[in-house]
């Protein structure tokens, strides 16, 4: 099945900037992966917990990491906070590499 990376932050706006860069990076590398950004509060409402393989948090919501890890890691979703410098520099390529590494690919 196609792998999915989901990014969450407060309203899903600043993460969507990064998603665009990550999609470009994935295309250049020829990696087939679905990448989306949503507000943290909308994650379950959109049923994303069922399809997500890696859940990445914007550093501004890093305080949610403990809660989200406890909730989703038992069902096999990898949960990680994005490196804040990569996030600020919108380094889609690096964040994609980290996410793929989490999936073990």
């Amino acid at each position, binding site marked *: 099945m196609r792998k999915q990376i989901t990014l969450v932050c407060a309203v899903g706006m600043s993460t969507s900037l990064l998603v665009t860069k990550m999609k470009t990076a994935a295309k250049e590398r020829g990696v087939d992966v679905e990448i989306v950004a949503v507000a943290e509060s909308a994650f379950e409402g959109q049923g994303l917990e069922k399809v997500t393989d890696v859940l990445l948090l914007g550093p*501004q919501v*890093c*305080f949610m990491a403990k809660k989200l890890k406890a909730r989703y890691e038992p069902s096999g979703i990898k949960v990680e906070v994005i490196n804040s410098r990569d996030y*600020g520099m919108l380094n889609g390529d690096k964040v994609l590499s980290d996410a793929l590494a989490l999936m073990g690919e």
Partner: protein
Amino acid sequence: MSKFSDKFGDGLNTVAAAVDGNRFLGAIKDTFSVYMPFIIVGSFATLLNTLLCSPKAGLAQFSAFAWLSTISPAFSAVNFATMSFMTVPIVFILGVHLARKSGTPDIISGVIGLASFISVVPSVVSITDKGATLSAAGLSGTVLGAQGLFVGMIIAVLSVGLFARLFKIEALKIKMPPSVPSAIATSFNTLIPMLIVLCVFAIGGIVFKNISGSYINVAIYSLLQRPLEAIFQSAGGIIAIVVFSQLFWLLGIHGGLIISPIRNPLMAAAIAANTAAVAAGIIPNQPITYGFWVTFIVAGGAGIILSLIVAILVFSRRDDQRMVAKLGLLPAICGISEPVVFGLPLVLNPVYAIPFIFNSGIATAIALGAVKVGFLSCNTVDIPFGVPVVLNAFLGFGWQGVVVQAVILVACFFVWAPFVLVSNRVKAGE
């Protein structure tokens, strides 16, 4: 970092995790992120009503479009259905979110919260006309609209909480033979807890009314909601909240999200009060709305980041800073500060800490001052996050809003500028 700032940082991190992990605050936050778009849509209906149907200022002033004024009640209806009626859907959604966090049936809990709320408020409306008091069955605007918000949220939290507890008690479950489909068993098993919850709240409501002489919604509005609104709308109150929120941003934590469970209900009440005031022909007097927040308090990103970007592009000779500034320019125009906050970075950056913490407070003071002298009107059109500067000010506050926003951006540019120069010297000295 010194020990003091370590402790300070740990403290704020604990607060952030506690607010986020708190079931009630978390549910309120989620509820408003569902409902805020409806409030914005409702306020846009007001805008369309003016632009299209007003015979004085709108399209309807031209004879070819005069018919537009006849459909004006439709836009008022959209506003009523979303804004003047907000407490009903908000109480329901809050019940749903609370139930999801405690693992009880969510839709049923939403209805329980709503039914419990309706059971404690007057179900008769009375009007006095020429000395005669007439009454009829119905719910008053003070129950359906923003004035019922806090009592509604409190009743939802208590009733859904009680339901969740009762729901888990085995003794209250009706035993069914195993051959009965499980869906039927579930529906019966909710009946006894539901009956108990609704009776407890209805009786509680009537006992409160008999002892105190007033309905609980009236009491909670005047004892809790109105004082909170007054603090939130005061210059001292809102500036303290804004600075508190920026302290989180200094640690790289989304401050607006942390304060949203208390901020968003009060902002929803404010825009509703302004809309009601305009409809009644009174001057609106609640400045701190969501539109005010995105247009002025966090103009160009929380901490007035757009001004910092321009200051860097003008004064900084550091290539690393100029690169981040260019990268962050377009997002900052739309109010997104993260590329600069994490890229520069501003997080735990001692050189920029003071302007980063206080600029949004300065912006608040400038905009409130403009309201105070009568230059800027309190808005009735709320603006969603992400609308570019200038446009958001114009849509929400007219040309006066654009002027005030420009003053804020320029003032904060001068606040950032010396710190940009210092950061260049720090780098040169390294």
